């Protein structure tokens, strides 16, 4: 007879922000059924309320004002509620709140105002939160599906429109394919170590006999396949093919959200699996993890391909899609740097700082596209930026801030993120990758600054509309980008104590 656990053993309170959000999503789903079609704003406000509550809880937990639960592990080690989890939660919750704001009017004018939009968004957010907190390979996978499946639906949300349906189909098929890679990888990791718990995997790798090449081979294959599956989610080259098509076809408010949320989830899972689970998996050299070399190669390829193809894009959404691929490359540098044990913490913090900076900047940039986009999804070409500074000076100024931040100009959040990532790379002796990163950043200035040039120095209609919540979202994003740019220590303080290592 096995020992029946008691309810307090679950330690549900430690997972409070995520549990509140998941529960909220279920409740709002039922509430929304009784909200008449023309008053779906109620669901939007409920969703924003749920996200705010969860965000406050996550912030309290991050700043150590309140400690939820008893110890860091909940659900028998399946959920890890540490500082890393809190920071991931804060990033994704801020993104979701901005995502609700930008969707509020956009859904109205494109005739998509349905309650499903909001709670699918909540489910995705819950998926990202569980992914960041995963203490077990099973949670990584289930959370990945919770993150992905609502996104497939949201991508096709503009239903009778063919482009949207097409992109949803592409995303779904390729996403299902990549999930298969991930499951296979996780299964092989399980096969090599005999456990699915990350802490136990870490211990198993530690005690793995150096001469046991067959287990090492299994683990290496498992880590590689997991990298493929998660590389797809974060749009790393060569698994990036879906990104431009999906970003172009999906409703822009969805893209604003998913371009950040899916990346946060993917990178959180990558860090949990590779940096927390197998940082000590070294083949022969004993100085860096076995998965480091392939990760930095991926990073280099992603930066080069993303930035070069972005140059020739003529559609804003496609351009930002390639830009988001390029940024996945910069973040991957941080993941690669974490392969050197003495830099692991610094690199992990750098990745989170980058993601935080990227969240504000990228949601902001897509919000500006929402402002210029017409109701029939047209006017997203580069030329729509012409003359924007004359008709909409504030909007153009905000867009300029976002573009400078994406380039990585000092005094913007983007610079802070790149600074920490490159610093970690140099500390990890990955100097060639850091050099590629700097060079491709210079290259990216061409297409980002061209948009600024078009807004300020070329003539055009510059048509745009910024109704209330959208304007708030753009304002908050711009302020966030600037504040973190001027006061980088806010970000680094937030991330200072984060570590993924299973030490004690």
């Amino acid at each position, binding site marked *: 007879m096995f020992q029946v656990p008691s309810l307090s053993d679950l330690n549900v309170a430690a997972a409070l922000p995520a549990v509140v959000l998941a529960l909220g999503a279920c409740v709002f*789903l039922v509430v929304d*059924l009784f909200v008449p079609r023309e008053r779906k704003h109620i669901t939007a406000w409920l969703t924003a309320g749920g996200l705010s509550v969860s965000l406050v809880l996550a912030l309290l937990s991050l700043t150590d004002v309140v400690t939820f639960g008893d110890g860091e592990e909940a659900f028998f080690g399946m959920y890890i509620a540490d500082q890393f989890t809190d920071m991931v939660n804060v990033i994704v919750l801020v993104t979701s709140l901005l995502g609700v704001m930008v969707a509020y009017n956009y859904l109205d004018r494109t005739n998509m105002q349905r309650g499903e939009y909001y709670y699918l968004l909540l489910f995705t957010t819950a998926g990202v939160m569980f992914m960041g907190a995963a203490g077990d390979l099973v949670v990584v996978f289930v959370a990945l599906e919770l993150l992905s499946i609502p996104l497939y639906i949201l991508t096709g949300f503009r239903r009778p429109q063919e482009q949207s349906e097409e992109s949803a189909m592409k995303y779904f098929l390729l996403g299902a394919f990549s999930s298969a890679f991930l499951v296979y990888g996780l299964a092989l990791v399980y096969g090599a170590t005999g456990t699915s718990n990350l802490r136990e995997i870490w211990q198993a790798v530690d005690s793995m006999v150096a001469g046991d090449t067959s*287990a090492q081979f299994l683990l290496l294959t498992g880590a590689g396949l997991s990298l493929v599956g998660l590389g797809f989610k974060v749009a790393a080259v060569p698994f990036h093919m879906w990104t431009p098509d999906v970003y172009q076809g999906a409703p822009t408010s969805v893209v604003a959200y998913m371009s950040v949320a899916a990346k946060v989830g993917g990178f959180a899972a990558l860090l949990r699996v590779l940096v927390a689970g197998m940082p000590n998996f070294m083949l022969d050299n004993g100085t860096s993890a076995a998965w480091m070399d392939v990760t930095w190669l991926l990073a280099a390829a992603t930066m080069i391909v993303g930035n070069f193809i972005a140059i020739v894009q003529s559609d804003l959404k496609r351009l930002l899609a390639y830009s988001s691929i390029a940024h996945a490359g910069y973040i991957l540098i941080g993941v690669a740097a974490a392969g050197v044990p003495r830099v692991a913490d610094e690199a992990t913090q750098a990745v989170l700082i980058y993601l935080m900076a990227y969240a504000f900047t990228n949601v902001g940039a897509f919000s500006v596209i929402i402002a210029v986009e017409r109701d029939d999804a047209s006017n997203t070409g580069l030329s729509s930026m012409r003359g924007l500074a004359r008709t909409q000076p504030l909007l153009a100024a905000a867009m300029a801030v976002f573009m400078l931040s994406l380039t990585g100009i000092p005094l913007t959040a983007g610079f802070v993120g790149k600074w920490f990532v490159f610093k970690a790379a140099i500390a990890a002796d990955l100097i060639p990758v850091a050099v590629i990163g700097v060079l491709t950043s210079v290259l990216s200035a061409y297409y980002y600054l061209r948009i600024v040039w078009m807004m300020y120095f070329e003539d055009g209609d510059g048509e745009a509309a910024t109704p209330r919540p959208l304007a708030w979202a753009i304002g908050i994003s711009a302020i966030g980008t600037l504040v973190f740019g001027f006061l980088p220590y806010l970000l680094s303080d937030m991330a200072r104590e984060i570590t993924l290592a299973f030490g004690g």
Partner: protein
Amino acid sequence: MLSDYAPIAALLILTVGMSSLILFMSRIFGPYRPTARKLAPYESGMQPFGQAIRRIPVRFYRVAVLFILFDIEVIFFLPWAVIFRDLRVYGLVVMGVFFFVLTVGFVYEWKVGGLEWE
């Protein structure tokens, strides 16, 4: 470590070997007089024609998906029901959470008309 999987490899080789052997032997020792009719794919005596991939109303898929939902519910409920006395409050609460999530889905599907055929 990899040698632990040797029985699986042995099973794989045995099954493939045995089935090819049987096919091979019956071809050598049995009579073989093919006609066009004998070689035709069997489809309940009907004349096989057309493609296997046909358009099927999407409603069937919906019913199938809804069926899976309830099927899985039963699959999880059954073992719990067998030992639910031993699991006491813990089992009841955990199953309650599971049931809550399913019920939310069920209410949604009912309300949006997922259970109606037309």
